[in-house]
Structures are given as structure tokens and as C-alpha cells.
């Protein structure tokens, strides 16, 4: 049966890397994580990995997000070659990183750079949860902080797509300190009048949610995204209480006043274009 055929597979096969992704026929079909219906992968992809049936937002690779957001060939990547030095000499860390570099074709869990969105310039940082769960270590903190500094120096608006399970354990307290580094960069950027838009995608938790992801002038989220500080299991163990199903979803955060808006992936670009335009002249009172 078709169901059995797909049941054993990973529900969402990983695509090896940016270059190769178009010519690898691996996994012709894809099962929706929301309604469990099966679709042609092509069809799902055309729909930006949003289920045509139930609207479930599946993760989007960082490059795919950049591709659908920026004007053709306008994107310039920054700091592509930064990689971890395994600062704590953590056993097994180098191997894990190498594995994910091969698996994703990325050097780290974030891509930063600048380009044009419908003709309007913007700097961006896009996290990719397929790379070590988007966990934040020194490189991610550094790349994001540099991107914000670049945006400040070039007077560009800054857009960030967060996707992270939290801190990179293998870099210990250095990963914690990236929260500070990025937050100070945002303070400097904000004081200079810069516009920052944050989009929390599934999942945005831990140290990333407790730093730059929450510090946009506008904080958005994709539908259904898991957003929160502490993990559900830890909270349940602490308070000895079962949490409601919708706990820490984007919709839950919106209801509790923690978000400006939950935005469907297909409407994101249009919203950006409007917002960028509205902030273009720095406002006027008359």
C-alpha cells in the first residue's frame, strides 16, 4: 500500500544541497505533517512547502526562502565561509558539523546577505533548521551580528527569519553569549533608526527566541510555528500539569500579546514590500 511505502520513510526527506536539489529525484512524494495526505513533492514545493489541503507550513530551506523572497540574482551572501572552531574541543562536535555540512550544503545554520525585494534593498538573515536544528553557536551569533552591523552601516532594513531549537550545547557558554552579542547589535541598529522585521518560523525556541527573534520592530510568525522559551516537556515536568495542545504555537503567542501578526507564507512577501515602502522615507509628520 502506498501508505506503508511512505510510512517507514522520513516524512520529509532532506535535500542534499542547493545545487543538487533540482536534479535529485529522491522522494517523489511527500506526506503532509498536518493532514497526512500525500502530495507530489513538486506540487508542495510550488506551494512554498505549505500543504495545499490543510495549510500546514512545513520547514523551508534557507535557500528556498531567499529564492522566493529576493529579486532574481539580486542576493549577495555575506560571511559564507565562517565555520566553528570547536572552541570547547567538544568530543564528536566536528564530526557532527561535517555531517550536516554534507547533508545540507550549508556551512552553518544561517545564511546572511543583502538583496532586493521587489526593487527595495534589504539585509537578511535566514536560519535553517535542517542544519543542527538551527542551534545557535558562535558562528550564527557572529554572522547575524555582522549582518546587523552591515545593515546599520549601509542604512538597510534588516529582516530575520528565525528557526532554532535554541543554544548549541557543544559551544557551552559561548553560545549563550551570542544572545548578548546579537542583542547589542540590534540596539545599535535600532538607535540608528534601522527597521527590523523578525519572522519566527517553526521552531523558534530557547536562546534565539529570548534574543534577536523577539527584538524586531515588528514580530511576526508563520502559522502553527512553535515559539517559546522553555521546552514543553521541561515545563510539564516542572508544573506537573499537562499543557494544552496549542501551547506555544504562533496563534497562542498572538493571543497572549507576544506577536504583531501571524502571517501565511504566501502573504509574507507582499507584507514585506508594503512595510519596506512605508518605512522608506523614515516617516513624516504633516
Amino acid at each position, binding site marked *: 500500500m502506498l501508505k506503508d511505502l511512505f510510512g517507514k520513510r522520513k516524512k520529509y526527506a532532506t535535500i542534499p544541497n542547493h545545487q543538487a536539489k533540482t536534479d535529485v529525484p529522491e522522494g517523489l512524494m511527500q506526506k503532509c505533517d498536518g493532514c497526512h495526505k500525500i502530495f507530489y513533492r513538486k506540487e508542495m514545493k510550488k506551494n512554498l512547502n505549505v500543504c495545499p489541503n490543510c495549510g500546514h507550513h512545513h520547514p523551508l530551506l534557507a535557500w528556498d526562502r531567499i529564492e522566493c523572497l529576493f529579486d532574481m540574482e539580486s542576493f549577495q551572501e555575506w560571511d559564507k565561509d565562517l*565555520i566553528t572552531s570547536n572552541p570547547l574541543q567538544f568530543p564528536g562536535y566536528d564530526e557532527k558539523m561535517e555531517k550536516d555540512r554534507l547533508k545540507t550544503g550549508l556551512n552553518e545554520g544561517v545564511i546572511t546577505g543583502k538583496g532586493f525585494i521587489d526593487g527595495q534593498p534589504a539585509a537578511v538573515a535566514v536560519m535553517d533548521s535542517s542544519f543542527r536544528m538551527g542551534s545557535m553557536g558562535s558562528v550564527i551569533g557572529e554572522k547575524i551580528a555582522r549582518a546587523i552591523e552591515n545593515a546599520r552601516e549601509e542604512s538597510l532594513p534588516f529582516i530575520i527569519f528565525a528557526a532554532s531549537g535554541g543554544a548549541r550545547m557543544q559551544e557551552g557558554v559561548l553560545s549563550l553569549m551570542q*544572545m548578548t552579542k546579537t542583542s547589542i547589535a540590534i540596539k545599535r541598529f535600532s538607535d540608528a533608526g534601522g527597521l527590523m522585521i523578525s519572522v519566527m518560523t517553526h521552531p523558534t525556541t530557547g536562546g534565539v527566541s529570548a534574543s534577536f527573534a523577539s527584538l524586531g520592530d515588528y514580530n511576526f510568525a508563520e502559522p502553527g510555528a512553535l515559539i517559546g522559551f522553555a521546552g514543553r516537556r521541561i515545563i510539564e515536568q516542572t508544573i506537573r500539569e499537562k499543557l494544552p495542545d496549542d501551547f506555544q504555537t504562533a496563534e497562542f503567542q498572538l493571543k497572549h500579546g507576544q506577536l504583531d501578526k501571524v502571517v501565511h507564507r504566501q502573504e509574507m512577501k507582499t507584507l514585506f514590500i508594503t512595510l519596506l515602502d512605508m518605512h522608506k522615507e523614515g516617516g513624516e509628520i504633516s
Partner: protein
Amino acid sequence: MKQVMEFEKPIVNLKEKIAELKNFTKDSEIDLSEEISTLEKRLSVLEDDIYGNLKPWQRVQMARHQDRPTTLDYIEKLFRNFIEFHGDRLFGDDEAIVAGIAYYKDRPVTVIGHQRGKDTKENIRRNFGMPHPEGYRKALRHMKQAEKFNRPIICFIDTKGAYPGKAAEERGQSEAIARNLMEMAGLKVPIICIVIGEGGSGGALALGVGDHIHMLENSTYSVISPEGAAALLWKDSGLAQKAAETMKITSYDLKQLKVIDNIIPEPKGGAHRDLEQQADYMDHVIEQSLSMLKEYTPEELLEKRWEKYKQIGDFTTL
């Protein structure tokens, strides 16, 4: 009676033996002064050996010791006329964080710190020193006030972490922490942070952005507790001891990683053995920090703060 940690048992046993002998000689004619003096010498060597070579896991136990002095203990020793102020003006008052103003020597300062309880009852009131968003927002309110009135800020860090609870999430634990990080970056007054016990993750960091970061010798600062790290990395919280070593969480590790500026020594056997002495060491450091930092203009202060944090982290290029 202080709680005895496993690794200091040989010291305690020897001390008891010496006390016994001393007691015995009091009511007898026999002279044991030579034996006692030998044992005391041995004790001194033993103490140096054990306390002078603490393993990371032993320091974790020190940092968590039930008698370890808390923020309010240090406030009482270091400052004059401390007036505690309550509430975040948004939701409530979180007693896991204390905040107020006081005199340090002759100058008014703002003092903020995590506050654990001394016993179960107080711990329940203070939520074991694990703040909710209103705690961080209260702290920020006081920091802004410090900036307005041009007072230096002194923060004491001592928490297992921000509270992982339902209400905390609903009220925006993430945002509260993030906001503090961002706003502390821009405060135009000197900020001195001292880690006095456990510096647990984002919940510690939210009071921890400053110009000088000091750490008591036996305190810890980490992204996750050793138990949490062990469970996450090796699926076995029993490997906490190993995690304490691998994760680099002691004051010496953090100094080397340039996350902190300075280690404040502790009296032999830990801060809880001699609060007076500990406060003296801290007094010296605060005085020094304040006199260094007052030389900077607000602009220089902020620039240096950024420079300092910008450099934390390590990476290479392909």
C-alpha cells in the same frame, strides 16, 4: 551546622578529631599539644589539597550549597540604607528578583539581584530564585531609573534559570529576557555584574550584560545545568559530573573564554564559610570597577561594552 559536601568529609572528620583531642586535654592532665599541632598541620595541608584543587563538579556543589550567601546577604554587608522597591507596573512583583537603591560608600547605586530563599517557605515565596517575566521587567524598570538619575548599577547573578512555567511563557519570558539584553546594552551608566552562585542560562544573562563581569571563584555560569546537558547530549542525566567538565562552566573556564573579566577569590572552603571575608573581597572589586568605569563618557562606555561582547565567541574560516 553547615551542610557537608561529600568531598570535604576528610576535612570535617579531621577537624572533629582535633576538637575531640582538645576537649579531652581540657579535663585531663595529659599533654597532647604535640599531637594536636601535628594534626593541625595535616589539616592545613589537607584543606589546601582539597579546596585548592576543586573539580568542576565540586564547584557546582559549592555554587548550590544551601548556606551559600545570597544577594540580600551581600547587600547587607556591602551597602548602606538599602531600600527595596517592588513591582514591574505591568503585572506584579516577582520576589525571585530584588531591586532597590542604596549607598555604596558615599554614592547612591542601584542594586539588583536574583534572590533564592534560605528555607523552603522562603523558597516558595521566591520561586527558588527562578524569575518570571515580571521579575526581569522590574529589573529593567530599575535600570532605566538608574540611568535617569545617573547611578551605577550593580547586579548579582544567582539563578538556576528563568522559570520554565506556563504563566511565564504566556507573559513572554522570551521577550522579557531579550528586552533586558537589548536595553542593558544601551544604558548610559556603568553596569557591574557579579555571579555569586549559579549563573543559569538566559535567566542569568538577563541581569548579566555589563561593563565588568566578575565571578566568585566557586560560582558557575552555563548555557544549561550539567544535569540538563547530560540528558540532552548523552540521554543520561547521571553523567552530570562529566558534563560539568566538558561544558566549561567554572570561573576559571569562563575567564579563559573571555566571558568574564575577573575572578573574585573565595575564603577557604567557600563563600559560606566566611561571609565577612567574602564581602571584603567583593568590596575591593566593586570599588576598583567603579573607579575605573567612572572615567568613561557614556559614549565610550557603550562603545566599550559593544567591543567587549563583539569579541566573545570563536570561529574560523573554511
